[in-house]
């Protein structure tokens, strides 16, 4: 399978800060590849290197078969980039923004319209409106259309769903899914763990290091302990009690329950009596399947040790 991106040993420092540390990965053509990690993990820095906006201190990257340092001119014609903060011209209209990007890349809106049709049709009724007056979700769609308008081979999206509500986020990923059929490779960065499940492959990144790379399913299945979910109405008391209990290895709140791992992967009898003694009478406990966030937390814990 031809590779869209091949990265070997990429490192980048800003003064004393180590932003990226020995990053190596490959992205297959036509895949949707996700970089999942919190702020400061190095996602934006990595993307800027991939899009030839920054030079790595060490290592090399081949994008679409070309070296990103020497062949930047050629690469820039074939990459569609949507940096964070939706870089649109606030005082130009939706239509004007799109036309501008099309022209700059030497094409027209009509030429590749079929590519963006699904996305642009949501905002087309507002095409005369100034970009600055659009809601977050609409800006997202416009920025995506502008990045796609020249039919790039590689689409680079840096945190496209940050700060946007759950409905728009879901719609956005639906749109990305539909782009698959055009054979465009897509790399996306996001702090939202649940979005990882919608990628073909995922790299978990934290503090400039890659914790793991694999398909989301395999990462999730890599969770090394048995996971239990404990529920109670007395949420906070429960967490405190679980932390206190000597059989607990990790206890993390996850929505309406607490995900717990125990020593020896089993629930001892002492567990029940302990909770009662802590004043928690009403609770449920059941085995649970680990999600990708559980795995991420596990890897982070290991990394922090």
């Amino acid at each position, binding site marked *: 399978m031809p590779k869209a991106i091949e990265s070997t040993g990429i490192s980048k420092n800003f003064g004393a800060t180590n932003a990226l540390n020995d990053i190596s990965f490959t992205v297959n053509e036509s895949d949707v590849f996700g970089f999942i990690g919190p702020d400061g993990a190095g996602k934006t820095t990595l993307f*800027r290197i991939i*899009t*030839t*906006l*920054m*030079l790595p201190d060490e290592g090399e990257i081949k994008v679409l078969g070309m070296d990103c340092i020497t062949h*930047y*001119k050629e690469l*820039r*014609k074939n*990459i569609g*980039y*949507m*940096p*964070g*903060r*939706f*870089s*649109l*011209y*606030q005082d130009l209209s939706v239509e004007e923004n799109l036309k501008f*990007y099309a022209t*700059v*890349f*030497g094409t027209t809106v009509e030429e590749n319209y079929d590519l963006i049709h699904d996305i642009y049709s949501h905002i087309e009724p507002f095409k005369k409106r100034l970009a600055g007056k659009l809601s977050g979700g609409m800006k997202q769609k416009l920025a995506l259309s*502008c*990045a796609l308008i020249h039919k790039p081979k590689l689409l680079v999206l840096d945190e496209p769903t940050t700060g946007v509500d759950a409905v728009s986020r879901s719609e956005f990923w639906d749109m990305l899914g539909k782009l698959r059929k055009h054979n465009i490779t897509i790399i996306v960065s996001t702090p939202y763990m649940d979005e990882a499940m919608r990628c073909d492959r995922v790299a978990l990144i934290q503090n400039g290091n890659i914790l793991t790379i694999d398909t989301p399913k395999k990462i999730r299945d890599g969770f090394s302990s048995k996971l239990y979910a404990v529920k109670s109405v007395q949420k906070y008391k429960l967490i405190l009690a679980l932390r206190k209990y000597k059989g607990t290895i990790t206890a993390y709140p996850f929505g309406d329950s607490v995900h717990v791992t125990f020593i020896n992967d089993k629930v001892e009898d002492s567990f029940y009596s302990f909770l009662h003694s802590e004043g928690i009478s009403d609770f449920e406990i059941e085995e649970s399947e680990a999600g990708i966030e559980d795995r991420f937390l596990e890897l982070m814990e290991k990394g922090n040790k």
Partner: protein
Amino acid sequence: MKRFLGFVKKEFLHIFRDYRTLFILFGIPAAQILIFGFAVSTDIKNAGIAILDLSHDEITQQLTDKIISSGFFKKTDNLLHYNDIDNTFKRGKTKAVIIFEKDFGKKLISEGKANLSIIADGSEPNTATLVTNYTMAIVNDFTKSFAGPVPNNSLRINPEVKMFYNPNLKSHYMFVPGVITLILILICALMTSVTITREKEFGTMEVLLVSPLRPIQIILGKVMPYFILSFVNVILIIALSWFVFALPVKGSMLLLLAESMLYILMSLTLGILISTVSSNMQQAIFISLIGLMLPTVLLSGFIFPIENMPKVYDFVSMILPPRYFIVIIKNIMIKGTGLLFIWKETLILTIMTMVFIGLSVRNFKIRLE
């Protein structure tokens, strides 16, 4: 009260941690005082004087020597005709011409009075006034100490004072061209410096960089609209000067417009250069406005003639484009000169423009670092 003090303390901390603010607070006043002190001088030193001596006798020679050796003047020319006066002013070095009438010495001795004309370059009203006053003082001094057959107290040398180009000695002949020079460079540099840094701040620059657009295209693309709009601006300004201040355009209007557009182009490219060294709009505005304004007002010859300043400032002002444009604009508007006398300044501005463009393209970072 405690709240208030806590807040004040915070403000102090902000200021001391921000080196740029400290610089503004202390550095700029100090610099201003020093510059002002030395640059601002209402004395004249080495003002150029040309002599049109229609008499050529001992007395005119003595008086000429006295004037030249006073330390305020230096002789630029010995003129032969009235017609030469215009040319010598146009060349720019001469600030005043002293004309001794025919048979000056003879008339002074036989009749006890003689006529002297002082014709000053009215395009610099302040200097003109000073020069004429100093000259008249020297002439009076001369008559007092003149040793001759006629008793001193009845000697009369009548100086007739005329202002060339600016008969009524209107001070706005000096100010308005200077203000035009100042405004054009500030506004133009400000416009272009802000437009590029704004793209950097809003993030749209990132996407432009990752596009096929080349730096030179981005730069010229930014300059072009302002260039065209500034053309309209220049016409407006000249029209206003004409109608409101009755400022003439003695020379060629076409030449004036062409030189103005050159100056504007230079200013726009200077703004681009500023933007390549600024990382945000605030810096760009600061450098364009504050960084350009003070030197332009104080050192370009706008208000205070460069000749009156210490030599150091003369050198410094050589890198200031406004210095050259002021000469150009005054020459065309007030003196009516053609390209012949201002080709040097025009060439310098052209070279500056090309240097700015070259440096901008070179500095223009094709990557984010």
